[in-house]
């Protein structure tokens, strides 16, 4: 009668232990790098917050003075890049992650502060507002995804346009206040242009039509400067020297 060798249970257990250790190391590494990212986001937010505060202070100080001295260039690119990173973290770390939610809330507050400051500046300086408030939700909203593409595309075509996006369902009183001030319906997506709410998906053309100020911030085509070659430069120098010499002689 043939028999199998006895099972090496000790080995099965040791391998289980080693595998668990490797597995936990993988999970730990993932967690470690995700936390690093969250720290990076926190640091960006705190830097934006500082810039924002600086702008506010500058505005208050210069309230009585000239409009052109107020810096308005602080936020748009930082906020946009932060938005991209938070959106990526939602996908990568999870929409339910406490840290991600907290970062998003903070980001929304920064957006509102920036919006209020910009509104004040434009009002006082008689400029036309160039902001869009955008309300969306993450779940079951294909139209929101499409609206996101439209707004991203607009932002790329009009670099000075400020799009403030808000997660309609984010549990934060400031967003609730915005929702009630602008009477944003729950039929999302919704955008607010010049204080007026437009509910449902809007194409690029529709937004451009309802928002004529966009034309004023369209980047101008760059006219290339005439090139000066090295030989031209030398000729100019010679000419200047000759003129000077002539003047001296005369």
């Amino acid at each position, binding site marked *: *009668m043939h028999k199998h*060798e006895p099972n090496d249970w000790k*080995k099965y257990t040791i391998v*289980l232990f080693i595998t668990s250790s490797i597995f936990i190391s*993988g999970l730990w590494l993932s967690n470690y790098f995700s936390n690093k990212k969250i720290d990076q986001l926190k640091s960006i937010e705190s830097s934006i917050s500082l810039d924002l505060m600086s702008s506010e202070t500058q505005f208050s100080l210069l309230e009585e003075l000239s409009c052109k001295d107020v810096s308005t260039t602080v936020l748009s690119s930082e906020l946009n890049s932060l938005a991209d990173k938070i959106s990526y973290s939602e996908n990568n770390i999870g929409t339910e992650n406490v840290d991600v939610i907290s970062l998003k809330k903070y980001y929304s507050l920064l957006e509102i502060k920036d919006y209020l400051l910009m509104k004040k500046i434009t009002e006082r300086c008689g400029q036309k507002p160039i902001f869009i408030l955008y309300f969306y939700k993450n779940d079951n909203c*294909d139209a929101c995804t*499409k609206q996101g593409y439209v707004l991203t*595309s607009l932002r*790329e*075509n009009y670099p000075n346009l400020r799009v403030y996006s808000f997660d309609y369902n984010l549990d934060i009183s400031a967003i609730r206040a915005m929702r009630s001030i602008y009477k944003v319906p729950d039929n999302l997506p919704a955008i607010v242009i010049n204080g007026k709410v437009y509910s449902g998906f809007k194409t690029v053309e529709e937004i451009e039509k309802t928002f004529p100020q966009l034309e004023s911030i369209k980047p101008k085509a760059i006219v290339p400067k005439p090139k000066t070659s090295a030989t031209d430069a030398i000729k100019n120098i010679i000419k200047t020297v000759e003129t000077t010499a002539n003047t001296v002689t005369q």
Partner: protein
Amino acid sequence: MEPVFTVIFYVFSFISVYVQVFFLMTYFEKKRHIIKHPDNLVLLDYPTVTIAVPCYNEEATIDKTVKSLLSLDYPKDKIKIFLIDDGSRDNTWNIIKAFDNGSNIFAYKKENGGKHTALNLALENTTSEFFGCLDSDSLVHPQALIRIISYFQNDLTTMAVAPSIVVYNPKNILQYAQNVEYDMSIYTKKMLGFMGGIHVTPGPFSIFRKRVFDELGPYHKAHNTEDQEIALRMQEHGYKIDHCPDAYVYTNTPDSVAKLYRQRLRWIYGFIKNLIDYRRLLFKKEYGTVALFTLPSGLVSIIGVIFLFTNIIANVISFFYHKIVQIQTIGFNNALSFHYKFDWFFVSTKAVLFLSIILYILVIVSVMIGRKMAEGKSSFSFSIIYFIIIYSVIAPFWMIRAIYNAIISKESSWTFERRVTK
């Protein structure tokens, strides 16, 4: 959907890492016991051996196969070669007939009935102590038989010994990729041999004590994978199967994706069907490693590959769907304008990624150990990259098809893979 995917992925990757660690641990534990024979091994005693070569439409390769058998370092009066034409439609019969010398080489012709019938014909006509088969598209190393027989002589409880199969003369990328796979399987097979968990005694040159068949019966059709079935039958009855890593057999491998697909479809289909036939072994501790480790990990690897593949396909479809929606929404030019600045922030830190990297590293380590055992070199080769890419892309197709065929019980025959010239 995402959390469900993540949990399933964790389960599969945990099992896959477990399997690889199990092999690695066995390797470090038993490394010193891997026998490396001298180039001119001699035995004190040479038992009688019969080698059966079933052929079907093998006119292109059979001549070389028989000549390699004739070059074996083994006394000619102790070895019998049975060449069995299983109803070929080409010139195979005329070629093998010429080898028949009436003393130790015998040619038989029979109606096509499948490989197992050809092998059983040889079994009925032999009284040798040992019996083996050599596929007619394979060649043997001169020392292969003598090295295998030494295993039987060193351990009287060993009932079968599997050889190391190496790709013969690889020419294209697909064959180099298979070479890597075969190298890796030399390592895994030897480790399974140490653990008593071998579940296939491959057609090319596995050698058995003849009494295995006297006691357990002849080959079965076994869904055209008789080499898997006989191994499982032996495992069920506690017969020891070992592996001789330096008994090299050089096999012609499929040179096109279509041929490889057909071969693997048969293997995986056979594996699934034999697993169903021998399901009574699964997880029963009295059947040892094959029941607790080999068969479950084989099953998990098939399901895991299909799961990953469907997930990748779903992601690709989702990507294109969103791209199309984007193009429809903001136009072609805006959708494809590319404003990308590299930022480490956007490099994924998901656990899925780290676990996949760990798994790939373990697979590459396995391949390197296999290469060292097969070819004596453990350097990194680009073939490893071909192997990972090609198998990731095409293996899921034969696995999915094999499962489908297993459900509707549609068999693929071994003759289907053979060249049909007339």
